[in-house]
């Protein structure tokens, strides 16, 4: 979640072995998020992380680390800022792409972004999302919101099978992946993993804790 410490935390994550960083731009009513990210968003908003501050955070993080940075947010922020203006200002600030959690794949095709597919997605929608996605396809592993889960979702494997039949685009799995063994299991099936809530929790303990956590994920993936 975007904040004053983001550049330092991003550096710690990269030191731990992260290949890219998602930076959450907080929204007051995040439908796709469970309690951990929702609470982090609330704190960020209370700390003044409006859209301009988030773009500034992105800029400062860009100056600190070399890996791709991807803002993740909700349609409401782009509607208020201006869709094209947000896309271009984010790019200028150093964004490699965007993830919009509540913008369906068939909407606003001109907005370059990483598309999401879920276990409930039809083959038709998967094909469309894959055709329109920017770089990689985000596989939401479970039918639910973000948040740590005890087990890797059993819905991931059948979803990957379906998606692989429809596209050759790189697939990264996310939502509910919180431990090194879950990450390893997900990475067996896909080309990468996205870890959100668990990383947020580690980050709450500080940059070193985050670096250690990311390093444990990296070790499990090697």
């Amino acid at each position, binding site marked *: 979640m975007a904040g004053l410490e983001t550049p330092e935390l991003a550096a710690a994550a990269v030191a731990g072995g992260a290949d890219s960083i998602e930076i959450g731009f907080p*929204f*007051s*009513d*995040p*439908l*796709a998020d*469970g309690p951990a990210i*929702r*609470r982090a968003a*609330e704190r960020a*908003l209370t700390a003044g992380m*409006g*859209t301009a501050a988030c773009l500034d955070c992105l800029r400062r993080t860009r100056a600190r680390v070399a890996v791709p940075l991807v803002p993740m947010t*909700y*349609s*409401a*922020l*782009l*509607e*208020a*800022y201006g869709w094209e203006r947000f896309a271009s200002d984010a790019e200028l600030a150093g964004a490699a792409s965007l993830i919009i*959690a*509540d*913008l*369906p*794949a*068939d*909407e606003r095709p001109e907005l370059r972004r990483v*598309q*999401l*597919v*879920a*276990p*409930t*997605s*039809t083959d038709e*929608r998967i094909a469309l*999302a894959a055709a329109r996605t920017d770089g990689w396809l985000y596989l*939401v592993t479970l*039918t*639910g*919101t973000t948040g740590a889960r005890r087990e890797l979702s059993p819905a991931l494997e059948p979803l990957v099978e379906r998606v692989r039949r429809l596209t050759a685009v790189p697939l990264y799995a996310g939502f509910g992946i919180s431990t090194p063994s879950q990450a390893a299991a997900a990475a067996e099936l896909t080309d990468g993993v996205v870890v959100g809530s668990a990383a947020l929790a580690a980050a709450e303990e500080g940059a070193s804790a985050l670096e250690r956590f990311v390093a444990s994920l990296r070790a499990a993936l090697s």
Partner: protein
Amino acid sequence: MSVGLFGGYGGRYVPETLIPALDELTSGWEAAKADADFRAELDSLLERYVGRPTPLDEAARFAPTGKRILLKREDLCHTGAHKINNTVGQALLAVRLGKRRVVAETGAGQHGVAAATVCARFGLDCVVHMGAEDMRRQRPNVDRMRLLGAEVRPVEFGTKTLKEATSEAIRDWIANVDMTYYMIGSCVGPHPYPAIVRELQAVIGREAREQVVEKLERLPDAVVACVGGGSNAIGLFAGFLDDRSVRLVGVEAEGAASLVAGRTAVIHGSLSSVLADADGQILDAHSISAGLDYPGVGPEHAYLRDTGRAEYVTATDVEALAAFRSLAATEGILPALEPAHALARALDLDAEVILVGLSGRGDKDLAEVLAH
């Protein structure tokens, strides 16, 4: 947005996980509407179970001199408000779609009660998400829902009112989408919900128009209804949209005036007029009446406002309380605090013959009224 547009408002701003469910709902609804058996079963329930048609009655003592005020008595529906017009229809749809579990949000509790009611009638599991603050100020409805067999889950974060309850209901739906039907309470949310709720509540307007023409042999000058999410208003307005001589007046709570004081923003899956800041962050609404305490509004209302077909004004907590007391004393009717806002503006509206949507009864509001 390519689907569900009211002149640019509306749409489906939801995570991908919900799109297949919304597609299923859309096609299920289209099929149901075209099915004569569905229509017949719905009409039969509205008559036998809900108690329709509801009366249109004149409030001669309440009305100021020189004005005629007619009340469309949705407070006389089973469960005491118009909400049940929507829940019987959506329950039939849920059964038709093979869902066994219903999730709903509620503000004042009237939609929650109406949802619990139909779920009991149809043997569906019912989970209602309700803000902890609303649970405190609308206690009788909480008790009612539980007695009807519903599980009421308190929402303990944020404003602890309808905004958070709606978000939690949607999250619940996302997590349980295969077996769960999301029974939304107003003409808000992602397409096709605003259209479904409007079409189910349109029975209010159809009846009211027939009744007023029969009774007065003329159309009213104005039709007035309170607007929270906007369902009773859109239902009442629907009967008169093509009657250009009839003014359509929506009354919002002053502290929750999404149409009067809001801006275009995304809330709960829909683009509409919202109390939001310049970044699109949704703000808190404030109203003495839980049912109006919502920072958003149905997208069709935003469209009606922009085209000038409907006008939107506000009433304060104090005015609503005064209108409550006045109707009680002059007509022997205790209105819900929500339509008390409509009554307040009807009293000073520059029109002679005014039809007011009395969307619910005030039993749930006794404690709140007595405390002020």
